[in-house]
């Protein structure tokens, strides 16, 4: 990446990027802003309850959901999580960090055939299963992997 583009993107910041995505019709504004805030799902403390309240219950395990996350987090405050759904007709994707005080991290809705690809950073206090669930064609799918959070030191 050239330095000019780097500087531009840094200045534009995250809000700008989201605005562009909304303008392009890739994200429904309701998925981003408070209007559709699913309070019950986002405030649930139990992972099963969060999954249920967000509408992802009864999901089938699927290897078509590809989660990219570090095996051990470099910094628990900003753990990069990327996920892609290869399931046709994906309309939404949600990330759950099961050991977090509020397990539902984000719920993304896709419209107009937007590519079901999400990339974000989550805060994790301790080692946990990171679960990505998908709604597609009226069915639910899910996949998960463990991300380890350690106090560090003592290596090598």
């Amino acid at each position, binding site marked *: *990446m050239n330095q000019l583009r*780097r500087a531009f*993107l*840094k200045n534009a910041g995250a809000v700008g990027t989201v605005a562009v995505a909304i303008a392009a019709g890739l994200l429904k504004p309701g998925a981003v802003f408070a209007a559709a805030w699913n309070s019950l799902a986002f405030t649930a403390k139990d992972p099963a309850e969060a999954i249920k309240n967000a509408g992802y219950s009864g999901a089938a395990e699927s290897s078509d959901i590809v989660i*990219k996350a*570090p*095996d*051990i*987090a*470099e*910094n628990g405050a900003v753990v*990069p999580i990327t996920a892609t759904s290869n399931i046709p007709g994906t309309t939404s994707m949600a990330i759950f960090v099961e050991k977090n005080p509020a397990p539902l991290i984000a719920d993304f809705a896709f419209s107009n055939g937007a590519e079901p690809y999400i990339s974000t950073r989550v805060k994790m206090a301790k*080692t946990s299963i990171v679960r990505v669930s998908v709604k597609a064609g009226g069915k639910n799918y899910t996949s998960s992997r*463990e991300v*380890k959070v*350690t*106090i*560090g*030191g*003592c*290596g*090598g």
Partner: protein
Amino acid sequence: MSMNRREFMQMLAVAAASGFALNSRSALSADSTGGFYDLPAFGNVSLLHITDCHAQLLPIYFREPNVNIGLGQSLNKAPHIVGEKLLKAFGIRPGTREAHAFTYLDFENAARTYGKVGGFAHLSTLIKKIRASRPGALLLDGGDTWQGSATALWTKGQDMVDAGKLLGVDVMTGHWEFTLGAERVKQVVDNDFKGKVDFVAQNIKTNDFGDRVFQPYVIKHINDIPVAIIGQAFPYTPIANPRYMTPDWSFGIQDDNMQLVVNEARAKGAQVVVVLSHNGMDVDLKMASRVSGIDAIMGGHTHDGIPAPIIVKNAGGQTLVTNAGSNGKFLGVMDFEVKGGKVADIKYKLLPVFANLIEPDAEMTTLIKNVRAPYEAKLAEKLAVTEGTLYRRGNFNGTFDQLILDALMEVKGADAAFSPGFRWGTSLLPGEAITLEHVMDQTAITYPQTTLTEMTGETIKAIMEDVCDNLFNADPYKQQGGDMVRVGGISYTCDLRQSIGKRINNMMLNGKALDPNKKYKVAGWAPVSEGVTGEPIWDVVAGYLRDKKVIAPRKLNLPKLIGVEDNAGIA
């Protein structure tokens, strides 16, 4: 009086040693050692490999571990085999030079018989000899080169940068190098190394946009054959070492990106693809099973001197995995026979570097002398004499670590102490003087502060569980490659059949069970968080040694292990 087999072998070894001591310098050619370094040339592409020398410019003693436990899929497999079982697994005769190089067996006698190992001047002569029979051979340095000695610390790695260049290093990757700070590493790579040494790392990217920080690989032509060397830096540098040293870089294993890089190198015509890795051997073995198209992974980090490559099957065929020990003790030589655009055969030998078999290289000797001159007098200070062997390697403790713990607890007035499970650090024989240089060999890091912290019993247990999991997690990708934190003052059991949170039990301090809610004074060093102040560890240890003058053999605080029956990783 009967003599058992081991004693007989020792006698033979001593006899052999006295026989060639007078003309040992001629050992580079066929002679009384049976031509120890005569390695017939093979094939048309050769790679020489050094790793984890930890800035040891001069020959040293280094005791291999008698505890290196493997569990689950690693159980009783290299590198988790020690002592006589290792000799048996690799067909090495007991009581020989090789047996001494690869194991801890009869360490004191064997070390006295065969002398010191490593040393850059000796390594240099050996590399020149091997290169002479292998035109175009590349020298690969797996990293942990700019850290581990006083001179490396005080010159910010410059002594090792210059020594590496003089040694003829062609390609390098890193780990402890990064603890000199991102800027310093970039400065060396962009200036000292420019046009001379390729620093490669496919798994280091910027935090913000995921841009490459170093070139991921380099293609070199050896006898007109394109050979790709891909770099894999230590994936957990920002976790095992201070994050603030490389605040803008992200590491990780990234085997999906590794596959892309392998494919790219192959597409560009590489007929041999080798990964120069600082993953640690268990991680390399797993990576070799998941990524295809790699001919060999030449690894380091875990300091495993493994005599023969481990063959790993994968979707694309197979990959050889090697590990070349530490402290300049070994030189790995890998010869490829490339036919019809691909590797047809591979031969590998891990040569132990015995200083008294090799005439030191004059130019390197001068460089080392010049580097050391300003510090020589200070480093030579004799602080105390040790009555026992001092060493570090081992999963749970080493005698030099125990000495550090004892010093920390006494000097700081602590109930207990923690010392990091580093795997570098040289060894001393009974009767040797402990110099300041020896202390620096165990402690020379850029974050040497000592601390005294009040911790609850619960916190102490949590820390021990956390570090223990970094060593024994069932998934190699979740291991960090160091050893268990050394613990002073607290006895415990370690149940290796369990998972995190359940391994550390029966913690006792002064004959009393550790109270989860009570606070204890715990001394430590090498804090990974920024802004911690405290007297450097070498001052604490040196002060303690000057005061004691004579160091009696240490009593190791070792946990009682559960679940290690029939484990070849413990002797």
